[in-house]
């Protein structure tokens, strides 16, 4: 054995282990699938996933494109950030919007958050995956986010209709992932499965990963609805009679469609401050997303139907 055997595996830190595990998953996907794609939602988890992809294949650029499902209701800062991130990573960016939904005038206000999400996110995603014939799609979901996610495999099988059958998942032992699918079927691969929200923030801090400025506190125009602070990102947000946006010092813990993503009041304007704030937070991350609030099983239902 070599003289360096005194170096213990134990010296790898928690984050180094998570990083290596994620890279392993990404390389398995790249090696085993014909046509993989990385779902890029522009949020902090996507930023970490993209950063890990750059690491996994260096010095090559990641051997797959990025796919962004654009509902047309993303924060403007997110879109600018997205385009820059793809350029920096030397990756192709596919932007897909459900044109039917746009034609029918589907918005979070006219159709309610549930129908809107279904058409502009879930349907749009399925449409894009089918259109380009992707047989594997990376997602940035983590098991600590939500209960049905906690049950999901790292290589999660999807039927031809992009459905998930949670009761009948393939056993997944060690780091041996079953990548076999028939034509039309696919795998959703979740390289961040074992990361927690705190891990994500610590890693962003340690690696100095760029994230959308909306995560940092700034004075922004908001309206308060049902105890949630909604940012007025453009003139499309319908204001109730008597409602007028006010400038408040806010930031976002999670980013989605601006009318569906609640901000929090916070003075945390730097990464260390954000992470510090995280440590004393007593509200779980997804509570900033309006779509999870219906009932406890709502995420599972959405996932069965093809949501990420």
């Amino acid at each position, binding site marked *: 054995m070599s003289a360096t055997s005194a170096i213990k595996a134990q010296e790898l830190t928690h984050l180094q282990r998570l990083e290596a595990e994620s890279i392993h998953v990404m390389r398995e996907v790249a090696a085993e699938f014909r046509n993989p794609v990385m779902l890029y939602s522009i949020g902090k988890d996507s930023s970490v996933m993209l950063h890990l992809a750059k690491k996994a294949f260096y010095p090559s650029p990641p051997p797959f494109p990025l796919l962004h499902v654009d509902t047309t209701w993303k924060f403007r800062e997110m879109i600018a950030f997205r385009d820059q991130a793809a350029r920096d990573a030397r990756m192709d960016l596919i932007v897909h919007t459900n044109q039917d939904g746009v034609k029918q005038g589907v918005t979070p206000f006219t159709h309610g958050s549930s129908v809107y999400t279904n058409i502009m996110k879930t349907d749009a995603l399925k449409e894009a995956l089918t259109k380009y014939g992707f047989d594997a799609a990376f997602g940035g979901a983590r098991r600590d986010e939500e209960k049905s996610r906690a049950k999901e495999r790292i290589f999660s099988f999807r039927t031809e209709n992009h459905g998930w059958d949670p009761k009948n998942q393939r056993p997944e032992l060690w780091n041996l992932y079953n990548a076999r699918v028939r034509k039309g079927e696919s795998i959703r691969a979740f390289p961040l499965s074992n990361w927690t929200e705190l891990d994500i923030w610590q890693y962003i801090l340690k690696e100095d990963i760029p994230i959308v400025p909306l995560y940092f506190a700034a004075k922004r125009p908001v309206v308060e609805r049902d105890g949630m602070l909604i940012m007025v990102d453009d003139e499309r947000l319908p204001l109730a009679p008597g409602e007028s946006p006010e400038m408040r010092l806010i930031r976002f813990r999670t980013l989605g469609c601006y009318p569906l993503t609640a901000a929090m009041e916070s003075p*945390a304007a730097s990464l260390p401050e954000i992470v510090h704030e995280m440590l004393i937070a007593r509200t779980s991350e997804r509570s900033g997303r309006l779509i999870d609030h219906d009932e406890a099983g709502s995420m599972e239902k959405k996932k069965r139907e093809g949501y990420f």
Partner: protein
Amino acid sequence: MDNFDPAAFAEYLSRQERKDLLRFLTCGSVDDGKSTLIGRLLYDTKLLFEDQLATLQKDSAKHGTVGEDIDFALLVDGLEAEREQGITIDVAYRFFATEKRKFIVADTPGHEQYTRNMATGASNADLAVILIDARKGVLTQTRRHSYIASLLGIKNVVLAINKIDLVGYSKDVFDQILADYGEFAHELAFESIQPIPMSARFGDNVTQRGESLGWYDGPTLLEHIETVDVRSSEAERPLRFPVQWVNRPNLDFRGYSGTIASGTVSVGEELVVAASGRTSTVKSIVTFDGEKNHAVAGEAVTLTLADEVDISRGDLLCDASERPEVADQFSAHLIWMHDDALVPGRNYLFKVGTKTVSGSVTEIKYNVDVNSFQHLAAKQVELNEVSVVNLSFREPIAFDAYADNPATGGFIVIDRLSNLTVGAGMIDFALRRAANIHWQAVDLDKHRRGDAMGQRPAAIWFTGLSGAGKSTVANLVEKRLFALGKHTYLLDGDNVRHGLNRDLGFTEADRVENIRRVAETARLFVDAGVIVLCSFISPFRSERQLARDLLEPGEFVEVFVDTPLHVAEKRDPKGLYKKAREGRIKNFTGIDSPYEAPERAEVTLAGGMAAPEDLADQVVDYLREHGYI
């Protein structure tokens, strides 16, 4: 926000960085309280957020099974069906941390029908918390889960004797269960067993001492898992680097990306490609964050080598002085995970590390009774059964015994048709000890190619009159060989005359040239490792001798389809005899040109006397008896 203190924060971060990670699973029978225990751990370590707690209280009122109290099980049973039925179906992964460690816990189902999910959770765990309901004692599931945990290499066990409150916090009950467990556990390969009496529901001995358990002076569960030493010996084992992906951004860079499964690697170190025996030295260890001088087990890196060596995904790079074995037949433990029983002889895919090979179970040696650990004679392996089997792979792979190195000795079994993961296994040893002789680096040749295909390449040369049935029999033989997983190709007048030999007519010179080209083509196929079937009238001994001479002894198998002229003429499938008799075709074999019957054909078939299927069987039998297949 609280006052932000950068110095204190930096201190906090560095403390976080130094924490290590323990992965464990909870298992045991149904209703032993696994999910409740994890919920209690999350609650007591303050990992629950306020909104999660609110949801939990709402769910407890709707589905809860503990009256007005919070039902912690609902916290982890994430699937709708699970909450409705009050059971755990699939593994749930939970995350929590204390000042000392970070934890990932896999909560696994207790029902026997979901044993495969328990095995899934166990495969990545360093420690198993096995729950026992104090009222019920050691059950079959306790033994099954203990056995599987041990089989998968878990060395450290916590025996959580739960619901101790329901037996009056009795020390006698605790001692009795401990004695019962010890009776069978000594047969398992655990290094440490920590028994803890507890009540997950009331929190006794989970994170805090139980007031009613004064007679117990051991650690609480949390104390134990915070301090137990589960350091793996991965880094001290010999280097194993399964190549995942060949990294070729441009012509000047060729790297091999992968995760170091065990050992360490340094620049300048000599490595060997286990299967081919080729060696080279590490030129650089490349990462996004810069080049490194060495790297250790667990790291995902890209290696470049000093020499041009043929390496692809699935190859195992190793310490040249401590090589793994290379073999194609193994004895292994197998856990079956599908409703359809294992079928010996059926072709499955086996994924070992980054290598996927086809192969089959050649023999079920015995199944293991998980209750008594006795060996049971068995003809099949059903869902959730554990079996010891012999395996045969289509090609040799580099491996270590699972006990020595799980990363290079564990495998999953994939059904080729459904693509489902139907089993998981652990290699114990190679069946042919001779395989322990490492491959020496040699150039690829037909023998190695043939070995890789599981066959001895040869040209099977069918000769006989037109209409004798050569192509019919050759086709049947090819189908049978294909069904056996052999690599074959059929050359006959039809596919040669239209392409390769399109420029040739039927003069004698052209007919000789025709056979020469066919023989040369057959030789190339044999060199490629293929069994090539050639179906040509080839009436002249000299022509057939020419073909035989092009090949090495043993590579030319002459099959004489000896069908009498009158039978062949009566069949006349293409109407050629009729034309020849009418003089419209000249030099037709058997009519106005001779057929020189072979004098020493390897196989002679009595054409016209037996069904073509029987004739094909005779050829296949010959190939089997003479070691071609």
